[in-house]
């Protein structure tokens, strides 16, 4: 093959690989097509939201997501390891380290009198991955043994998995770790301006109303408090995106079926990743909730497969 032909062919091939069209008919949508056509008129006025690639009435999304997570709870951690090839651990480590929870007695600039212990609220924190890392970082690196984490999740099955896992940590049953079953959009049990650090890792894409959750975050945070979100996002590099999408839509539901016995839940998970707003859009939503964005407003991990967004509540 002559060189011009070679370049033309490979450019054509990579364009085919990269410019993956939005599928015109997805699995979940087409199953319900018949029902949707009949109900379309009735549903036109009702507010709908995304459930993966499906459109569902807002009232339904919460229970559908609930069903997904009740089903995946027991194999959640194994599945996370297999789906991300153990890389999610690195992302969570980076997330916690960049937040540096805990008040170091010598380096944190606070009056010499005993400071109030840092209160961290971990939203959609179900199995406790972030919470345990926070406590470990605070205790080990910052020598802070008073800061506490409240783990909140809407799904009781995930919370009980987390409680079970906490038995292997030094903080099970201590006042440094508490568990709350709550909807992130309605945190009525958390007082205004009582939280120093609000974190949500790989949870916010499942929320029915993300802006409402961001407003709640704004309410519960103290002035000067930090909002931090680790979530799957848009990949910048086109070739990486091609490979990543194919892994997501091909391998992940397959692993879900083999390990967890549940293809549908993992199909939902990859579709919800696809539907999540881009880094810029999401940073805009955080700003709209009243937060000040740092510079840079987000940090891409692994080319954008995941991103850390932060915001600070103005003093």
């Amino acid at each position, binding site marked *: 093959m002559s060189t011009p032909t070679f370049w033309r062919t490979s450019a054509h*091939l990579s364009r085919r690989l990269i410019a993956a069209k939005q*599928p015109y008919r997805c*699995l979940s949508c087409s*199953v319900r097509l018949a029902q949707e056509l009949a109900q379309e008129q009735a549903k036109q006025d009702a507010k709908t939201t995304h459930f993966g690639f499906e459109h569902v009435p807002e009232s339904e999304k919460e229970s559908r997501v609930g069903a997904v997570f009740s089903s995946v709870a027991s194999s959640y951690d194994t599945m996370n390891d297999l789906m991300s090839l153990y890389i999610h651990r690195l992302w969570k480590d980076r997330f916690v380290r960049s937040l540096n929870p805990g008040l170091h007695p010598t380096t944190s600039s606070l009056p010499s009198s005993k400071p109030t212990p840092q209160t961290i609220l971990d939203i959609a924190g179900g199995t406790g991955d972030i919470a345990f890392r926070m406590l470990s970082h605070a205790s080990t690196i910052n020598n802070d043994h008073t800061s506490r984490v409240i783990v909140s999740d809407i799904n009781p099955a995930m919370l009980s998995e987390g409680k079970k896992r906490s038995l292997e940590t030094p903080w099970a049953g201590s006042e440094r770790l508490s568990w709350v079953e709550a909807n992130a959009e309605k945190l009525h049990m958390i007082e205004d301006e009582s939280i120093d650090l609000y974190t949500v890792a790989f949870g916010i894409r499942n929320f029915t109303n993300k802006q409402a959750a961001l407003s709640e975050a704004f309410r519960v945070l103290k002035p000067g408090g930090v909002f931090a979100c680790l979530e799957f996002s848009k990949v910048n590099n086109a070739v990486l995106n091609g490979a990543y*999408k*194919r892994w997501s839509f091909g391998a992940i539901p*397959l692993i879900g*079926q*083999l390990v967890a*016995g549940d293809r549908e839940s993992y199909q939902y998970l990859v579709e919800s990743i696809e539907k999540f707003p881009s880094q810029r859009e999401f940073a805009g939503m955080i700003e709209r909730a009243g937060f000040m964005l740092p510079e840079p407003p987000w940090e891409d991990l692994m080319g954008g497969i995941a991103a850390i967004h932060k915001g600070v509540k103005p003093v």
Partner: protein
Amino acid sequence: MIKRRHLLDSLLNRPPPNYEGQVPLNVFERGALAAGSAVMSLLNPRRGDLIAALGETTATPYFIYRLRDAMLCNPTGRRILRDRPRITSKTMSVEKLRALPENTVGRVYVGWLDREGVSPDTRDSVKYIDNEECAYVMQRYRESHDFYHALTGLPVFVEGEVALKAFEFANTLLPMTGLSLFAVTRMKPAERSRFWHTYLPWAISNGLKSKEVINVYWEEELERDVADLRAELGLERPPDLRDTRKTLREQRKAAKEKREKMSGLMAD
């Protein structure tokens, strides 16, 4: 080159399903699912969903088409394909079946359901077979499995299941039934020896010589005597496995008691 592009694309642009519940997979995915479910179901035989997936992913190409053609070659099979009867708890009333006389097909079938504590609804629906008619054939085979237990008299624990799978392999030629025979590695030595000496030879000879069991219209045979149906199909019952195991268990128990008594006497 072009074929590979289509395969990579098909992950993101799946074709619309041919029937409700179908999950279209490309060749790689089917292969990976077949390999993965074979390994995982051998490690954990309780994963019925993976055994079902193994059956569906290994049925194409050729084998499920052969089975469908075997149905098309038989008048009753053709009627089944036209009527598409489904065996669910709605279509099979277990109360009515329990009222039937002892040796009827329906009564024996309900006996198996009760003993295992399952209902006709516990079978997964077919998802990975693209052709709609073949998906029905697979579904029919899956739903008829409990009837095969009734027909052969094989019990529902592992030893009986493996023997029945060997019979189904010889009769239907579905690859999953043959692959299930790897479960022999998980059986106890005495069970394995019975399998090699008695049940495998029975399964192969009867599977090959009897008529295709997929063509039995079970809904019409419920009140028929089981022995009668067996004679028509040309198959014989294997030695009753439950009785054999019970007898052996009692013999072992008697021998143990005798040994204990002897050692008791000798100690005195």
